[in-house]
């Protein structure tokens, strides 16, 4: 299942092995490119990545959470809540840099709360974050009177969506940096490497001197931070803070991680593959629009494509779930 195969002797073989896991995504991209002349062009890809920044950030966090054998169902609701609060405090005249800072702190705090209750209460994070989801959703409606709050600060809107740096959109940079940092954390830091053990066998990890509880709380805090970042990008993109603005986000993020070959019950997950999973989902949503498929059939097509992609990917990487 998760046995890391010994690396093949021949470079070609190794190359193949490294590419094959992405057969699924590649297949989907080919499919859309062939079936729509509008899909395969750089601008569209750039837009695709920029627009999926929110999903990507959340999916990265979700990868760590799921790696630990935990889950966070509150992300979608919290993104909306934070976006709403962001819009409101900016509306109340708080300069945007401060507002952004407040949101990042608040998000981290919420994530940490999830972690602390899960760990100290020793109850499933499924329940804790389920509760958090309901609470966040409720609050986002209560705060706004169920009407979205417009964001007027142009500099904010520009900086976090349209602005480019070295020719690439800022959201893309933020995603890239988050990805790089997360990779570094997982592969090169003590805390990060310990996560695999914690997820695969908490008892053994504890006996190996890994501070299991602290690690879990940290990861939930990181998740919270990324959710906040996602909320900021989403708010800038939508130009508003709207309650229940992203009902699809949570499931999409979890799906991205699982499509990326992670085990829903911990111990196995990969950021790179999550990235692929998220890209696959984004490509699906984007490609569908361009392809003029009957709106009812779209669901079926989506399902079948995911299946095909995953099966290809599994066969290719020889992994048995």
């Amino acid at each position, binding site marked *: 299942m998760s046995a890391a195969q010994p690396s093949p002797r021949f470079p070609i073989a190794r190359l193949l092995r490294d590419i094959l896991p992405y057969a699924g995504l590649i297949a989907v991209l080919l499919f859309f490119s062939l079936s729509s002349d509008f899909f395969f062009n750089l601008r569209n890809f750039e837009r695709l990545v920029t627009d999926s920044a929110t999903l990507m950030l959340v999916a990265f966090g979700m990868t760590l959470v799921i790696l630990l054998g935990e889950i966070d169902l509150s992300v979608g609701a919290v993104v909306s809540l934070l976006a709403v609060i962001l819009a409101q405090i900016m509306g109340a005249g708080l300069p945007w840099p401060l507002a952004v800072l407040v949101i990042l702190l608040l998000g981290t705090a919420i994530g940490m709360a999830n972690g602390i209750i899960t760990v100290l209460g020793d109850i499933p994070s499924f*329940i804790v974050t389920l509760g958090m989801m*309901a609470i966040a959703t409720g609050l986002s409606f*209560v705060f706004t009177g169920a009407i979205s709050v417009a964001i007027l600060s142009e500099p904010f809107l520009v900086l976090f969506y349209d602005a480019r740096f070295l020719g690439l959109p800022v959201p893309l940079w933020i995603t890239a940096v988050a990805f790089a940092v997360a990779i570094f954390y997982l592969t090169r830091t003590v805390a990060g490497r310990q996560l695999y053990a914690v997820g695969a066998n908490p008892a053994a990890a504890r006996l190996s001197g890994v501070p299991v509880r602290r690690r879990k709380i940290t990861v939930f805090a990181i998740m919270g931070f990324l959710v906040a970042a996602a909320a900021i990008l989403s708010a800038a993109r939508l130009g508003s803070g709207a309650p229940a603005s992203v009902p699809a986000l949570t499931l999409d993020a979890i799906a991205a991680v699982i499509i990326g070959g992670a085990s829903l019950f911990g111990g196995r997950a990969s950021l790179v593959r999550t990235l692929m999973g998220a890209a696959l989902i984004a490509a699906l949503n984007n490609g569908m629009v361009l392809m003029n498929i009957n709106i009812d059939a779209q669901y079926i097509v989506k399902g079948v494509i995911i299946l095909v992609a995953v099966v290809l990917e599994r066969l290719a990487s020889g992994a048995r779930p």
Partner: protein
Amino acid sequence: MTLRRANLADYGLVLAVILVIGALMLISPAFRDPSNLIGIGRQVAILGIAAAAMTFVILAGEIDLSVGAVASAAAVVTALALAAGYGAWAIPIGLLVGAGFGLLNGLLVVYIAVPSFIATLVSFFIAQGVALTLTGGQTILFDADWFRALFATGDFLGSRAAFWWLVAVALVLWWLLARTRFGSNTYALGGDAESAAMLGLPVGRLRIAIFTMTGALMGIVGMILIARIGNARADGAIGLEFDAIAAAVIGGTRLGGGYGSMPRTMLGVLLIGVLNNGLAIMNVDFNTQQVIKGALVVGVVLIDRWVRGKGAMG
């Protein structure tokens, strides 16, 4: 750590649920009205059946995201069959649709080795697509009082048929789980799939059976759904999967498998039902309800956990 300990542990959840019910009874006269309390029984019928099935799936170490969409699809097909005058044949047809999707899930998981999360996500999409295509987004009306009476509206021993369906399904699944080989194999499978295979248990067949059974039960759910309201819609039961998983987990079923029980799941269902009913009757608005429910659910599970003490999660 023997049975007595386990029973004792169960009282944690009972206690917590009783606390909630008690509180609501004190606050709201309308809530403590007997006919309302009886009403809760039928109001949780659909959730209850779905949660019972989901408990099986989770105990086996799997997950099923398709139940809501499958129930909807089954509901639509049944309604169309009734409208087209198939009469009693509509029932087996609906069951087959549900079981069919369940079987699909099972086959994908066992033979193509796709994780159940994805397999059932796929059939979720397919089922939803099918339902939408069949209805074209319209509300399907049908006219079959016998059907509605049989699955929902009919009165029997002072309660509605829907409630008795829940009772029947819950009892059967409890029996399957706690009193048959099928059940103990399910626990074994969820506890440690590898060992279960080494012990020569028919893990593949077991998984397929569980998913198919769940699908068939979603057929029944679909029928109760349309029997209650008298029409069918493509989105009739969307989101059910989520509440079902929640109820099971609130009941202490361990995601990942091997630990949990039918009575406890039913307590989880009862809690959700009571909260929905009580808060609505007290005319708490939807969003405030969410906040309260969120907090209470976590609170209840904390109490349960605390009473059960350390290592009780097996």
